[in-house]
């Protein structure tokens, strides 16, 4: 009995290498043996889909702010891909920029893929990276050419047909901020409030809890939170015929589910061990 109690108490100190191996297995295995878990779109992803859909159909361009780097590409990348496919799929136009230095490479990569059948300058424009988001956002509300004289490739804005339509936020239908940081808060402070331009946000799972107050206040009209809602958005795009095959977010949900289950299992085992060791000490 004593030996069993010792063994149970030992659960409180599982070697972290065991945890690492289990997490690796939980992440990798579902890619080879899919669990086939069903992703049902919830109200958050539906609202996001509806807002982007309405904006893409409006005939006015959508501004996409790519504020993440390679670190959170697994989460944010699928949101960005979804937004670009959605806008282009509905015949909409996009003005893309980034306030994160590493965002430039990411944005170029996704634009190149999503904009294959589109013409740069007419259907989309990439304005590149700018530091100091607050000042640039305030200036864009007055006139884009205060801070942008050329696009990211050095073409003067006046030579780009799309930028002849876009002078300030008043010419845009929506701002979509895909981020792993607090830049969407700058959008709220320096674009949404002073210029009354609508905003929707796609954020990593770790950032999204900070933005629920803004969602409730209507300062961001929709919030796509983490890979789960990115997968739900992918499912909605598929339903609408805007994506042909399941994207990476949908495929990643099995891995994420299993990894989360493994974490919960370890928390439960750790607590069983903790309670047993406490009883033993008494």
């Amino acid at each position, binding site marked *: 009995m004593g030996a069993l109690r010792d063994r149970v108490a030992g659960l409180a100190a599982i070697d972290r290498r065991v945890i690492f191996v289990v997490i690796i297995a939980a992440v990798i295995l579902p890619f080879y043996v899919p669990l086939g*878990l069903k992703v*049902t779109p919830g109200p958050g992803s539906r609202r996001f889909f509806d807002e982007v859909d309405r904006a893409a159909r409006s005939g006015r361009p959508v501004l996409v702010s790519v504020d993440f780097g390679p670190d959170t*590409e697994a989460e944010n990348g699928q949101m960005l891909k979804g937004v670009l496919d959605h806008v282009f799929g509905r015949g909409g136009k996009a003005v893309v920029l980034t306030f994160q230095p590493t965002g430039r490479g990411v944005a170029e990569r996704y634009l190149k893929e999503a904009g294959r059948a589109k013409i740069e300058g007419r259907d989309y424009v990439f304005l590149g990276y700018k530091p100091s988001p607050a000042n640039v956002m305030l200036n864009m509300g007055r006139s884009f050419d205060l801070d942008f004289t050329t696009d990211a490739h050095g073409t003067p804005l006046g030579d780009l047909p799309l930028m002849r339509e876009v002078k300030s936020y008043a010419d845009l239908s929506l701002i979509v901020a895909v981020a792993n940081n607090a830049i969407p808060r700058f959008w709220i402070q320096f674009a949404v409030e002073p210029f009354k331009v609508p905003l929707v946000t796609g954020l990593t799972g770790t950032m999204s809890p900070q933005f629920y107050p803004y969602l409730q206040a209507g300062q961001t009209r929709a919030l796509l939170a983490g890979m789960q809602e990115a997968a739900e958005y992918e499912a909605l795009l598929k339903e609408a015929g805007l994506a042909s095959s399941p994207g990476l977010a949908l495929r990643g*949900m099995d891995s994420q589910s*299993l990894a*989360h289950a493994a*974490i919960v299992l370890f928390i439960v085992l750790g607590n069983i061990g903790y309670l047993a060791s406490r009883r033993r000490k008494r």
Partner: protein
Amino acid sequence: MTLVLRVVVLVFGLFMLLQFFLVHPAVSWLSGRLNQWTNIVLGASLFLGVVSLGRAQVRTISKKAAGWGYAAVTLLGLIVTVLAGFIGGVEVGGLFQKIFDHLLFPLEAMTFALLAFYIASASFRAFRVRSVEATVMLLAAVIVILGRVPLGQILGSVWSDVARFILEYPNAGAKRAMTIGVGLGAAAMSIKVILGIERTYLGSGGK
């Protein structure tokens, strides 16, 4: 000199604040120009940052201080990337973009991916039923961890609904309180800087 700087801060600080309340084309024009100036100053500060980073690495290498090998890699990376950008341009297909795609991209992704293992290990050690508060936090964490993946939907739609409730109400309420607190603190600090009460940004204790 300090007095001149304090007057400059007072005038520009007040103007940047009042621009949100004064609707006049002249104010709009001036604040647009001031924002451009800020961007130029920021551009210069980025350059200073690069120079400072380079100097720190050179100092570490020349003294053969601990970790000088890492400093050498940092310096080499900095020089090669800057040269690749200046000589070959930053367009897709160039060396700069290749460095981004094939070096920075996997390195950053790998570093972030490691977090998953540390979070798993830290959750195992931190979430213990040590007290009532810790137990409440543990329960909330378990509900959200499972409720934010499709597995939560297998456990029942109530599970996902409770997870959403935790995020949208207790979490949002706490976050809103913190945001208001931080906002009031930032406003108070800004007023102190604008009025010259807080002067440590001038260096030498603000004297």
